[in-house]
């Protein structure tokens, strides 16, 4: 193909957008509306999931070890020889916990650190006055953070099977609630995304198809005077892709501006919620939204025009 022919077809694609101004505008508006809805829903769902995920990350399991004079002995139960761990064994257990797939982080809290946290919270700043010695002596513990809250039961079972572990503190309800919420969000968002995608594909595809169908006489003229399928199709495909691109750019720009505004507004107005409401940064949102919107807008513009022109090529 000649370079001049290539440039001609590209130029014709661009000119067609202008020539069929109202159709182009309607197509861009349809694509924009579909992708705006899709983007808006994605932003809400992504942030909601992020909030749940942040809450999950805060869920921890606390592991306590046997020690001389602990509540077991108070209850009249004697410790076995191996039950009271050495410092080395506690360290070993810490490493074993860290190596588990369910675990995202492990924090060792010595009995002194525990008392330094617990004392002021319950007895005020002068907590040491009433307790010259650490009442939590021997209460060394691990605070274990989960990578996936739904795996908590498996981890707890394993921890409880370690002979040196006296007690595992965990909240079954928090874990199951968060895990359930996460699952519901995943299924609902998947369902809505699939429906929105299907509606977008249908609407965008039909808009492009309709615009080409009203120009089928133009296609037949081209074919009668000896145009190849490529020559007929190329300007329509370029037009379809450009309309798709414009239809994609507009909602992305609106979502960008709107999202930044909402982030600033919430940060300024609801400072006390900032610890709980962890919004995703715009870069994380666009990391998914830009390629998907481009595939939807430009991809359907391309496929829609390609297949619709083909229907009218048999002249």
């Amino acid at each position, binding site marked *: *193909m*000649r370079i*001049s*022919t290539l440039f*001609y077809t590209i130029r014709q694609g661009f000119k067609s957008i202008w*020539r069929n101004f109202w159709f182009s505008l309607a197509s861009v508006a349809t694509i924009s509306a579909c992708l705006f809805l899709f983007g808006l829903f994605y932003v809400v769902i992504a942030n909601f999931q992020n909030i749940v995920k942040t809450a999950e990350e805060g869920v921890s399991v606390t592991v306590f070890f046997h020690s001389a004079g602990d509540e077991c002995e108070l209850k009249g139960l004697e410790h076995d020889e191996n039950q009271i761990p050495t410092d080395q064994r506690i360290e070993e257990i810490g490493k074993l916990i860290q190596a588990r797939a369910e675990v995202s982080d492990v924090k060792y809290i010595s009995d002194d650190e525990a008392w330094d946290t617990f004392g002021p919270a319950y007895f005020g700043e002068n907590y040491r006055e009433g307790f010259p010695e650490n009442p939590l002596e021997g209460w060394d513990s691990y605070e274990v953070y989960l990578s996936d809250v739904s795996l908590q039961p498996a981890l707890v079972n394993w921890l409880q099977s370690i002979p040196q572990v006296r007690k595992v503190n965990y909240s079954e309800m928090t874990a199951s609630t968060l895990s359930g919420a996460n699952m519901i969000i995943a299924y609902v968002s998947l369902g809505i995304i699939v429906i929105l995608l299907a509606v977008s594909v249908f609407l965008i595809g039909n808009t492009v198809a309709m615009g080409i169908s009203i120009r089928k*006489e*133009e296609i*037949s*003229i*081209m*074919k*009668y*005077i*000896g*145009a*190849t*399928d490529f*020559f007929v199709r190329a300007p329509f495909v370029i037009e379809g892709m450009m309309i798709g691109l414009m239809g994609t750019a507009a909602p992305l720009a609106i979502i960008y501006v709107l999202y930044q505004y909402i982030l600033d507004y919430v940060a300024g107005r609801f400072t006390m919620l900032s610890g709980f409401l962890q919004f995703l940064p715009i870069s994380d949102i666009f990391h998914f939204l830009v390629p998907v919107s481009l595939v939807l807008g430009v991809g359907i513009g391309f496929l829609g025009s390609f297949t619709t022109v083909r229907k009218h090529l048999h*002249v």
Partner: protein
Amino acid sequence: MTRRERKRLQCEKIIEEKGIICLENVTKSFPGGAHAVNDVSFQIKQGEFVFIVGDNGSGKSTLLKLFLRELVASQGKVTVMGQDLSKIRHRQIPKFRRNLGVVFQDFRLLKDRNVYENVAFAQRIIQMPTNKIKKNVPGVLATVGLAGKYKLKTTQLSGGEQQRVALARALVNKPAILLADEPTGNLDPRSSWEIMKLFEEINANGTTVVVVTHAKEIVDTMQKRVITLKRGKLINDVEEGVYGDED
């Protein structure tokens, strides 16, 4: 000798033997069994001027579509420019059609483009370099008497002028055959005669012209070969005939 040259020579030989258009027992039937064209045979020699006449539904336009390879014969053989159209592949059709110029009753111009662009479009299709297009298009527009109107939109032209643009578009690639489907159907008598005179001039320069028409006065006056169809059958084929001549 290359394969292309061999094929060209073969086509030339067929054109010499069978004419530039040759129909051999051609039948075109549509779903439901109706025969639009029924066992029609004739030849058109290179450089001839032929009218195809007949009532509505006689199969005239179907014949034209068979020549253009828009339709394929259900039976029989259609040979145009030495090529058996039943054997031509879909991707070869555009190249084949570039040998034919087509003019329609409703002009079929690209309404959003001006006169120059409509004619240049036919040259773009055959990938003519831009500098040659700039030279060829004004030339052919002058031939059809539209030299000064190349910048106008086709919607700004009269029916006769629009048909001239369509004719210029059909001629710009120097086709061997000019096919016209009711070219004067939408024109007043004066414009009709102007168009027919242009057809005659084009034919005088060696182009084969096939005109499907209802225009009795034109057919009777021009005294060219007339092929008459009735309900899909060829009922008459007369040199220097008149409309409705049934011997």
